[in-house]
């Protein structure tokens, strides 16, 4: 029999489906339940490095200190420090394109947090823009209990 040729190659469609579970842990759970039940955003403060991390974590990535008990409440308002516009459609994305993902530095926090920014034309987003959290009416026990952020309305 003859050797195989390149023309023998073809595409087979497959799928990979697997169940999994994610545990937020104690620190992550406190953050999420406070968000859900009190519409309050919390972080943890490293007193050695004098930095407030939002979302919170058990250890400071800089000095590796255990900071899990040093909770602080930060504001639901903050400023846009960076952003990108998602212009492609994919089933795993949380919105239809185009939509804005922004890095938002909440007042009282030292680390910006990524979230969806709405209520502004994607081409008009600016660094330093003041934004506020809009909470979701239904809970998913995830960071999407904040539905999105939107610009703070100008004073009338």
């Amino acid at each position, binding site marked *: 029999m003859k050797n195989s040729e390149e023309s023998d190659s073809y595409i087979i469609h497959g799928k990979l489906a697997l169940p999994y579970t994610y*545990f937020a842990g104690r620190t992550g759970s406190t953050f999420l339940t406070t968000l859900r039940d009190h519409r309050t955003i919390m972080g943890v403060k490293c007193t050695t490095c004098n930095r407030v991390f939002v979302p919170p974590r058990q250890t400071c990535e800089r000095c590796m200190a255990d900071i899990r008990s040093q909770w602080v409440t930060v504001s639901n308002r903050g400023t846009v420090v960076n952003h990108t516009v998602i212009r492609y459609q994919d089933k795993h994305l949380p919105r239809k394109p185009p939509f804005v993902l922004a890095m938002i530095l909440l007042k009282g926090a030292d680390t910006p947090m990524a979230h969806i920014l709405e209520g502004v034309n994607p081409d008009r987003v600016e660094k330093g823009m003041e934004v506020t959290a809009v909470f979701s009416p239904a809970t998913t026990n995830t960071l999407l209990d904040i539905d999105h952020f939107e610009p703070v309305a100008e004073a009338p």
Partner: protein
Amino acid sequence: MSFREKNRHVGIVGIGETRFSSHREDVNQPEMIREAVKDALDDAGLTMDDIDCVVHGNMELFEMVHQPDLWHTLGTGARGKDAFRLTTGGTTGGTLVGAADNLVASGMYDTVLAIGFEKLQEGHTTGGITNMADPLWARKLQSGALTDSAAVKAIAEFGADRAKRVAMLYRIIMDKHACLNPNSHRAFGLDWDQMEDLMENSPPLIGDLRLIHMCSQSDGACAMILSCEKKAKQQCDHPVWIRDHITVHREETLNLCVNHYPNETTHRFAARHLYERNGITAPLDYFDVFEMYDPSAWWGADWIRDFFLLEGDEHYRLIEEKEIMGGGKMPINPSGGVLAANPIGATAMVRVAEAAKQVRGNAGPHQIPGTVNHAIASSFGGTMWTILMMLEKELNW
């Protein structure tokens, strides 16, 4: 096989383990890893400032999150340091120690932190393993790491009655060991008089492989700190020296289901080469303890023969005469082994860690009697892959 001696000696100066459990809802992945890292740093009396490089690994597809090395930095302490991620299936933990050993021996880094972890409750272990098989053929047929092949072989060779008894005896011995180890995930308190009942009534998984024979799905992490000879002697009163290690892989993924014996396993191949190049002619006499990656009691019982280059039923007699318990001819898995806990990406490292603790003499309640000068640990994974690691109390070979 080409083989070069190390540029310099490498010693184990710190060992850390989490407790092993079926569930760790109280921590996320980096938080769990942090427990083992902190334990290893405390054990060594070091801080992250002393660590030059971090090697970190687990098995792909198990937690369904990818590139964990990036977001695990909070637990590994790798921020701003050289870091590598390694994943080689069940052997991962052994690969991590082997890589750390080579990184230090090469002269590139003086002190390396190796970390293996798994949170098996977060994923689907058997599903994950099945999806690593060849997608066009084997994925439809494979049942994870569950297989009846060792039982089929043992029954064909020794008869059903003896083979089933030896497998269950091995299982009960491992449980007795596990009961002494405070980190065990599974320690049932089994006794000899339960043999018949378990042989009959433990739920079957595949053929003669029953639930009681098989390892668990565990959550946990292990961390080890390795240093070059000079640093190790400064950092630690009694480093455990890694004399040599060998890695043997076989990539024959499709033709494993055979009933054609005998054939040389990667275990025997690895053992033969490792002992030859280190001048060890009677491994059963030379080593004082063996920590084996034994995914099931059937495999564990069978593999003793390959690892010690035994013939006929010598390995069966070691089990039947309980010579594999503490104080016996060759204590195997004083920790309880993989049947006691199996956080897969950490499991093979736990074998090295537990063997090293036996050498140090401070393993805890499961420390075996007598001095342990020479220890060996094995890793197992993939399509019958083997890593063997030789540990020494003294730098005198």
